[in-house]
Every structure is written in C-alpha cells, then in structure tokens.
C-alpha cells in the first residue's frame, strides 16, 4: 500500500470512528471514498468553512476539513444536539474540534511505534471564495467523504516527508 492509500485509509477510519461515537452521520457506502484526482482539486471542493491543523515531525504539512456552510451547520447541530440554523461561534468551534479529532485519528492510525508527527491547535477560516495555495506540496490527498446528509472533504497536504515514509516504506 502506498503512502497516499495509507493516509486515505487512516482518514476514513478516523471519520468512521467519529461517526460511530459523537457525530451520528452515516457514510454513503454506495460510493467508493477515494482521493480526488489532481485536476479536480480546485473545482470540486466547497470552501465556505475550512478547519486546518498543522502537523510537524517526520511528516510536515496540514490536515484540513473543507465544508459548505450547510454541512458545517448539520455537523455542529449533530455534535451539540442542538438545532443550529446560522453560522455562529458554535459552528466554528465544532469545525475546529472535528478537525482536531480527524487529525488525531489519522495520527494514531499511522503512528504504531512512535509519534509520526505532532499536532498544532486547529484554526478555522471562513468567508466567500476562499482560495488555498500550497507551495510545492509533496502530496495533496483530498478525500471526499460522502454521507447521508451531504459531503465534506478531508485534505492532507504534505510539504516534507522523511524518505522512509515515502511510497512503499512503512517507517516503523
């Protein structure tokens, strides 16, 4: 299994765990959840709200959630068990915490012997037509997560990576 596949699998496992415990959403199993091809990265992703967490260690980069306002409100409502109909602090805080949980789950899944990377505190960005630009990433793994209530995206951008973790290597 190559690096992209390992990261994607870890991301799906992390989200599945969240869905089974704190966020009652169902993954749409009729769709194969796999990374978007590079040519679709700029056109297909909603950018109303972006939750980002930095990672640093043997791998450096960012793990981000990209959501529409609607999806962010649905997820915040489910997480807090409240009916949230507008973008407010609870929505931003929910996106931050979900980003944190997704990133933590990915880290735990990939770090079998020692911590592969450390996590920063999450940041949430909101506004119209947010554009993201990454300087020469080694990998950009953007995974759509299709659920029964809508779609959101997990985007992992790796800017540096130890050679032992690159394709084919397990680093453990």
């Amino acid at each position, binding site marked *: 299994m190559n690096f992209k596949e390992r990261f994607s699998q870890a991301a799906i496992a992390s989200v599945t765990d969240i869905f089974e415990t704190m966020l009652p959403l169902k993954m749409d199993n009729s769709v194969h959840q796999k990374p978007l091809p590079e040519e679709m990265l700029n056109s297909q992703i909603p950018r109303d709200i972006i939750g980002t967490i930095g990672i640093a260690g043997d791998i450096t980069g960012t793990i981000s959630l990209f959501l529409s306002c609607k999806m962010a409100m649905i997820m915040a409502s489910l997480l807090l068990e409240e009916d949230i109909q507008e973008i407010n602090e609870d929505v931003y805080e929910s996106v931050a915490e979900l980003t944190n949980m997704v990133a933590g789950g990915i880290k735990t899944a990939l770090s079998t012997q*020692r911590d592969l990377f450390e996590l920063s505190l999450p940041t949430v960005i909101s506004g119209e037509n947010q554009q993201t630009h990454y300087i020469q990433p080694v990998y950009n793994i953007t995974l759509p997560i299709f659920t029964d209530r809508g779609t959101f995206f997990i985007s992992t951008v790796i800017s540096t990576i130890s050679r032992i973790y690159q394709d084919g290597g397990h680093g453990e």
Partner: protein
Amino acid sequence: MAGTILIVDDSTVTRKVIKKHLSKGPYANLKVLEAPDGQKAMEFVEEGSIDLILSDWNMPKMNGLEFVTRVRAYEQENKRPEDQRAKIVMVTTEGTIDKVTQAMEAGVNQYIVKPFTAETLTKTLKKVLTVRV
C-alpha cells in the same frame, strides 16, 4: 453523588458535550467548573478541592501534560494524602502509545481518546470515582 469536577479544554464544544453527558448520567449532581487551558485550571486547583479533573492535552498557554505534572507537584508540596488527591482523566485526540505512556507517568489515572461516547465517559468516571466523592 456530589463533588467537584473540573473540565479543562480549549474547545467550548468539547466542554459542552461533556457537560451534556454528565447531566444525563449518574454524575448529574457534580459541581462543574471549566477552564480553557492549564493555566486557568491551575488557579481552580489552588483555590480549593477538586475531586475529578478531565483534561485535554493540546491547549494554549499550558498544555494538559504540563498541567497534570503541576497538579501532582502541587499536591505533593502541600502534603495532600494519597486518597485526597484529584483523580485525573485525560480526554484527548492524542491516542498514540507514546502519549498515553507520558500521561500515565505524569500522574493521570485514566485516559479517554476522542471521539468518545457518553457510555465510555460514564464507565471511566465509575472506575476513577469508586474511592472518592
């Protein structure tokens, strides 16, 4: 069941979720205090008796590991008897063996990895609160 619980987490969402879980279970009567980081939480610890602490790991100002280390040092400096020391549960997204080991060595009693269910929280509290409160 009475007593005081201190929830330490920079995420207001996590604090709300924990409070909701507590309010529905056997620990609904616990007095709940909240702090957004270890620094503020340490003030509560020094002000009075806390029976149970639920602490996140990654927080601004003072992280969870440093906070736990300071709580245990404070209890030792003040010669607090073993059975009167706060029970500490780390509640964090940090789920690697490295992190769990560090936390336990610092004096954490139990460890919950986020995401978690209400049932996991209740079962964990039951384990740590059998002696006190």
